[in-house]
């Protein structure tokens, strides 16, 4: 039987579409239900953060960094503070380092919980979305207790952190970790073995390791493709080398592995936080840094591992109190870039699954 002649047509997915997590626009060339070509169109959230940073002093840049990647804004705080510290040669006090690690990992859990919920919602299950956000509230409460904000924290500053944790933080934090650890089993029970979930994710959107590396894909997506690389371990920053934890790696590179890997990461993060809470020393929380400090001329590229991959900031200083150039690099930027090269030849429903498990958020792409 000869093949029926079909006609391709173009569908605009976005910029306002429930599955694009913000304002991404994917121009899909489709043959019936099948996606033949993807062309991402970005820039709908381009707020020129890099240009604005050139007009701000170093401490003033940190709130902007919050908005650069708001889901895990602790890590954006950290990456900028770290870069400025390396430029100016500032030593961070011990207690501040511990607090940073606690906050970074809590934020990673919060971000992965959002991922869990949003991915499930994109695949049609509405209830896990609310479960994920419900447990996230415990973490948000901890952040609010510490820095007064629910989302954009501005907590990690150049030379330390903005304020100390309140006394009830540690017991509350342990309690929250316990709740999340318990609920994680519920999450797994709800989706991991669900036959529909398996059919929708297993073997879908296979991302080969060499393609991932060549496109600069990083973080959980890269590790789900079998590349054992985690900046926390392999290019250590802060005090991650003091804790005992593992880097989860999976080898199939499909949607299911990317999903499982993030759940594994939550468990590892809980492990790190518990150790950090145990070892939390007394002492200063901030080195003495003038708000108008002028790092010597030079340049640095600092990077941290956040929940979407490598989060990097390149700063070039010309010796004044304002950076000459700030360039931000988010994991989503490269992941979205790689999407057209492995996400085609699937049905549109699979594309939604792939997009969701890449965990792309648009402010990181557009800045």
């Amino acid at each position, binding site marked *: 039987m000869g093949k029926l002649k079909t006609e391709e047509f173009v569908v605009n997915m976005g910029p306002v579409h429930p599955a694009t997590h913000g304002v991404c626009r994917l121009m899909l060339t489709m043959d019936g239900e099948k996606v033949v070509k993807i062309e991402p169109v970005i*820039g709908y959230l381009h707020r020129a953060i*890099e240009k604005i940073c*050139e007009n701000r002093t170093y401490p003033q840049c940190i709130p902007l960094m919050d908005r650069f990647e708001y889901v895990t804004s602790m890590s954006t705080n950290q990456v900028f503070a770290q870069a400025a510290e390396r*430029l100016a040669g500032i030593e961070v006090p011990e207690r501040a380092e511990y607090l940073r690690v606690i906050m970074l990992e809590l934020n990673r859990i919060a971000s992965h919980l959002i991922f869990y919920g949003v991915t499930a919602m994109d695949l049609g299950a509405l209830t896990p979305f609310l479960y994920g956000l419900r447990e996230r509230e415990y973490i948000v409460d901890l952040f609010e207790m510490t820095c007064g904000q629910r989302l954009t924290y501005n907590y990690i500053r150049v030379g330390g952190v903005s304020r100390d944790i309140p006394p009830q933080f540690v017991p509350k934090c342990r309690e929250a970790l316990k709740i999340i650890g318990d609920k994680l089993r519920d999450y797994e029970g709800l989706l991991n073995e669900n036959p529909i979930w398996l059919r929708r994710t297993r073997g879908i959107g296979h991302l080969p390791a060499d393609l991932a590396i060549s496109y600069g894909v990083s973080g959980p997506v890269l590790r789900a493709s079998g590349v054992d690389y985690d900046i926390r371990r392999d*290019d250590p920053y802060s005090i991650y080398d003091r804790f005992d934890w593992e880097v989860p790696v999976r080898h199939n590179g499909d949607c299911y592995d990317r999903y499982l890997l993030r759940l594994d990461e939550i468990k590892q993060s809980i492990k790190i936080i518990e150790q950090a809470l145990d070892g939390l020393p007394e002492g200063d929380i901030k080195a003495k840094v003038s708000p108008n400090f002028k790092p010597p001329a030079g*340049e*640095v*590229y600092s990077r941290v591992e956040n929940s979407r991959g490598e989060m990097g900031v390149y700063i070039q200083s010309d010796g004044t109190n304002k950076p*000459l150039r700030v360039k931000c690099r988010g994991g989503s930027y490269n992941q979205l870039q790689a999407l057209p090269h492995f996400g085609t030849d699937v049905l549109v429903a699979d594309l939604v699954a792939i997009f969701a498990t890449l965990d792309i958020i648009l402010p990181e792409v557009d800045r």
Partner: protein
Amino acid sequence: MTKEELTNYISSTYGSQLKPLDTGRHDPLFEIEPKDLVSVCRALCDDEKVKFNFLCNISAVDTKEKFEVVYNLASLPNKLRLDLKFSMPYENAEIDSVQEVWSGANWHEREIWELYGINIRNHDNLTRFLLPDDWDQGFPMRKDWDAPDFIRMPEK
């Protein structure tokens, strides 16, 4: 391989093309001639000893006198970091695309083309993507850029 060993290795192996710079604050930084860019990148990517197969970032910098372009590389198997940098004058700024070495360079270079107006040779898709489609106000990331509704912070 530590940072010093890496610096020594790069200086000894690629000494003719790469010159160490002292402005790098955390990772080794080398200066490169624009004409050598693609061949050196290829060599760095393929060299089994270092194997810089991961491109973290490309940034263009406007230093008010010239453009600089910085490549931040990482090696996944050897867990190393390296920065490459070159400068060029304002007029007819042009660089070669490195996307044949790292495909991920595509969007970074496109962004440089769009925001700085640096032309990219051998790039397969130089089209506007961050700015609005009908943008006609030049290259906003340049230091001397100005627009009627642009509010500049006071210098001080």
